[in-house]
């Protein structure tokens, strides 16, 4: 089931990492909603007075992490609700863990643009700002949809699809025992069979989470940023380096201008591999409006945080910059005069291996070797996986005492837990509606008199 998040804003507390993604000095976690003060206190943080930036500590696995905390009481706050901002060391995986602790306390991941939207609904923003909000929500959600699509297409996708499928089948078998008992000779699934199926799904889910790493950690990888004027061929180069079509053309110019980021594996001469985050900053130099200012700011931040810049235009030589001359396949292009400008063609592949070697050289020891390929999870996906796993564990606790029985008891309660788990997995493996479940029953059993 889908809920319009904002309609719940009076009752739920939303949370998000609000600082720029990636490795930085400070990370900012923001909560908004009636329980935000209370939830932060469960971390051991002392929070007494509003509007006072206070030094405090977060209790974390027995360690005490220094932090700065700032609280506001609604309605005198950005969202007109109680707000807490936690500033922590800027380690992405640490920030993710803190966010998870707070989600366990009942906080909910904010939807794209939800803080701003809450502020808008509370009358904190004027009408001219509203259009910008709509565009921001659109852009952020497009980026998230892209990310979710990537997950579905990639390793996690096929994996989660199998999981959703297995879970849907288990649920269909339980539902068959409820809704289709006309054929009384059929016991759709015995408790022992259900335990077997659910244990298998539970194991897969826990394995998946153990092998996954957070999106934040992924974004903390060394950053290689493609820079250059519009139409320099950044996106083409981006796709060529990744060896796949990742950068998308925008349907409506001027709406989607998020920063594209994708992990890229580079191989050293000794065979070891290094993973970097390749970033394409679209629309950096495009005409400005209020929205674009924000995006340009984000783009400039990305450049500032870049470990290596691949520059596709005219620029001054610098230690962290690799200058390339793209589109060497075009007939009017000829060899560059300056020695340190690398001629490349994304179309023919010319110069790309050398570019990769140059990136590795510039990174030096900042490149992190990786042992095994891990899946990258966005915080919302991680949170969904966790909740699904817990729900299946609950269902297992319920079914396990029944394994000696022929038929299941309390089917409707077990079905409720499995339905919840399935809804959680919807963002990873596609939605499964009650009608889809019923369809599975029809396909398996001859039901109906």
């Amino acid at each position, binding site marked *: 089931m*889908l809920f*319009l998040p904002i*309609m719940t804003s009076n009752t739920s507390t939303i949370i998000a990492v609000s600082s720029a993604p990636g490795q930085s000095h400070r990370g900012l976690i923001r909560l908004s909603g009636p329980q935000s003060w209370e939830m932060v206190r469960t971390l051991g943080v002392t929070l007494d007075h509003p509007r006072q930036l206070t030094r405090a500590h977060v209790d974390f696995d027995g360690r005490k992490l220094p932090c700065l905390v700032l609280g506001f009481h609604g309605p005198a706050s950005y969202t007109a609700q109680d707000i807490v901002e936690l500033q922590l060391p800027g380690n992405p995986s640490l920030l993710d863990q803190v966010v998870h602790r707070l989600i366990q306390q009942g906080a909910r991941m904010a939807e794209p643009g939800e803080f701003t939207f809450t502020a808008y609904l509370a009358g904190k923003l004027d009408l001219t700002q*509203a259009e910008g909000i*709509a*565009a921001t929500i659109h852009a952020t959600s497009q980026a998230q949809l892209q990310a979710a699509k990537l997950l579905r297409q990639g390793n996690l996708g096929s994996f989660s699809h199998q999981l959703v499928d297995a879970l849907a089948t288990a649920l269909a078998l339980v539902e068959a025992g409820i*809704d289709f008992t006309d054929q009384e000779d059929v016991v759709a699934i015995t408790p022992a069979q259900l335990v077997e199926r659910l244990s298998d799904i539970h194991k897969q889910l826990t394995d998946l989470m153990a092998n996954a790493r957070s999106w934040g950690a992924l974004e903390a990888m060394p950053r290689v940023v493609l820079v250059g004027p519009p139409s320099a061929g950044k996106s083409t180069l981006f796709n060529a380096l990744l060896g796949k079509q990742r950068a998308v053309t925008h349907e409506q110019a001027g709406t989607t201008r998020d920063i594209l980021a994708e992990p890229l594996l580079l191989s050293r001469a000794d065979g070891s591999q290094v993973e970097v985050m390749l970033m394409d900053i679209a629309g950096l130099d495009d005409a400005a409006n209020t929205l674009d200012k924000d995006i340009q700011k984000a783009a400039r931040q990305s450049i500032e945080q870049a470990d290596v810049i691949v520059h596709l235009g005219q620029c001054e030589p610098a230690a962290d910059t690799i200058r390339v001359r793209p589109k060497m396949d075009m007939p009017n292009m000829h060899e560059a005069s300056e020695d340190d400008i690398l001629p490349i063609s994304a179309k023919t592949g010319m110069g790309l291996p050398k570019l990769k070697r140059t990136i590795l050289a510039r990174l030096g020891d900042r490149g992190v070797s990786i042992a095994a390929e891990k899946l990258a999870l966005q915080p919302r996906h991680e949170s969904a996986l966790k909740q699904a796993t817990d729900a299946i564990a609950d269902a297992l606790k319920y079914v396990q005492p029944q394994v000696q029985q022929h038929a299941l008891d309390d089917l409707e309660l077990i079905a409720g837990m499995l339905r919840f788990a399935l809804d959680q997995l919807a963002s990873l493996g596609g939605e499964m509606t009650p*009608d889809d479940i019923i*369809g599975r029953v*029809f396909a398996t059993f001859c039901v109906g008199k």
Partner: protein
Amino acid sequence: MVIGGGHAGSEAAWACANLGVRVAMITMEVDKIGAMSCNPAIGGLAKGQIVREIDALGGLMGIAADNTGIQFRILNASKGPAVRGPRCQSDKYAYAREVQRLLKTRSNIQLIQGVVDDILVEDGKTHGVIYSNPAQGINNQTLNTAAVILTTGTFMRGLMHTGEAKTQGGRVDEGSAEGISSNLTKLGLELGRLKTGTPPRLAAESINFDTLKEQPGDEQPQPFSDMTDITSFPPQKQVCCWITETCADSHEHIKANLDRAPLFNGQIEKGSVGPRYCPSIEDKVMRFSDRQSHHVFLEPESLETNEIYCNGISTSLPRDVQDVIVHNLPGCENAKILKYGYAVEYDMVWPHQIDATCMTKSIHGLFLAGQINGTSGYEEAAGQGLIAGLNAVRYMQGKDEIRFGRDQCYLGVMMDDLITKTPREPYRMFTSRAEFRLQLRSDNAADRLTPIGRDLGLVDDARWEHFEHRQQTVDAIKQTLTRTAYQGMRLIDWCKRPEVNRQWLTDRATGPEGEIFSRYPMLLDHVLAEVMYDGYLDRQTRDIERLRQQEKVQLPEHFDYNAVVGLRNESKAVLDKFRPRTMGQASRLAGITPADLMVLSVALGRR
């Protein structure tokens, strides 16, 4: 004005009459009002809950079923109270007569025999219908009304198939309504085509029941209606059903004659979709070719006649193939077929074109209920009839529309599913469609709906008085459970244990205080259900609160989704097609994301 006298039309007219307005029902044959075209049964899993809900809102289906039921049984009796479904086998002639009798008790209902060919619409508003009855010399007569409830069942361009034989009509020996389809299309409504089937009926005296397994009703039958007097229930003689089964020989014969089955050989219009949950025997044989036999339930259709319904072999196969299938059934070797099975295909209106009130979004005052909205089943039809009747009266009186929530009743789940999903087959209710299934039980239908029905004017004084007495009794039962202890523990705490049921409690409360348990067994079951699900209901409270908040936000009727900045193109297309009336409806459309809803809220806030 109600067009059609089936289960939707009857319930619609009844609701209108109870709300105090004058209502005319135009139907092709007045003495077929309330007819059971297919299975002579009311209720079942999820459907039984719907009947209880209709009853809680002052409807007639529960009363008619109680007065004419010849076998009462709670399905899933061994399972949790949320998934138990009351069902009865009805005397189909008595049932139709009872519906007609009840309608005639309302002086503000006028029955008119005739066929409606056109609905008059001006400036997007309904103002009357044109009907004919050649037998009475009436041709193209105009009747004025501000609200029309159209319940066409299987009669709109109804076409029946038995093998190669095709007959126009919605039911055996009855006609079809040919003109209305094209007029609905002219009004801008998009039509679809569905199909369904019915099995052969056998003569009871030609069946050898001695060899067959009996299927009796419950020892203590429970009525559907709260208004039924339990002391004289059931009023009809109770009978049992029998179980037999198909065999491999029949399956082979069906396969060999498949090219003569209209469901398979293309004789039935391509695109007509039949229900997967109620497959024809040819469908079963093809889809589950490894099964050697399928159950067939032999169900008496009436105490007055010898007709036996063969539940499980609905078919469109030619008569000679039906003969073989029937005679291969154990016990039916010499059975005489009174009526052969047939498939029927009919027109319907794609339900995204109505609101949860049953009113079409494009034509004010035109309400659709029952199979015309793509549903199947008497109960589903009756539920829509009630909702359409209620909202038609409110529309005429200028009052706000009533949409039941998914958290309130199965009726709400059904309406919401119809208008937010694209149906793949005739829609039938299942408990798994209701995310708040634990709340939507037959034992608490009155708690959920009777107070609402009272506010709306559907519940009369007698039912209200009964309801208040019921609430007092429930309180008294709870008090008794709290005050009475067994082995040092209060009975109310014992209720949380799985082994504790009605009998257990009755056995342990032997004093005068326990008398209430044996006197009100159904209400004791109700209290037990409340205790059992208590912890699980808490978890859903927040979801329900969110759902209600979203339903409060209404979306404007004429809204240009294409002009909304920041909405994805695919979302624009979905919203434009379905034109949801509340933010909640929008949220349940396939492909709509939370971000879309936020963008939409921004756009609405700016207006």
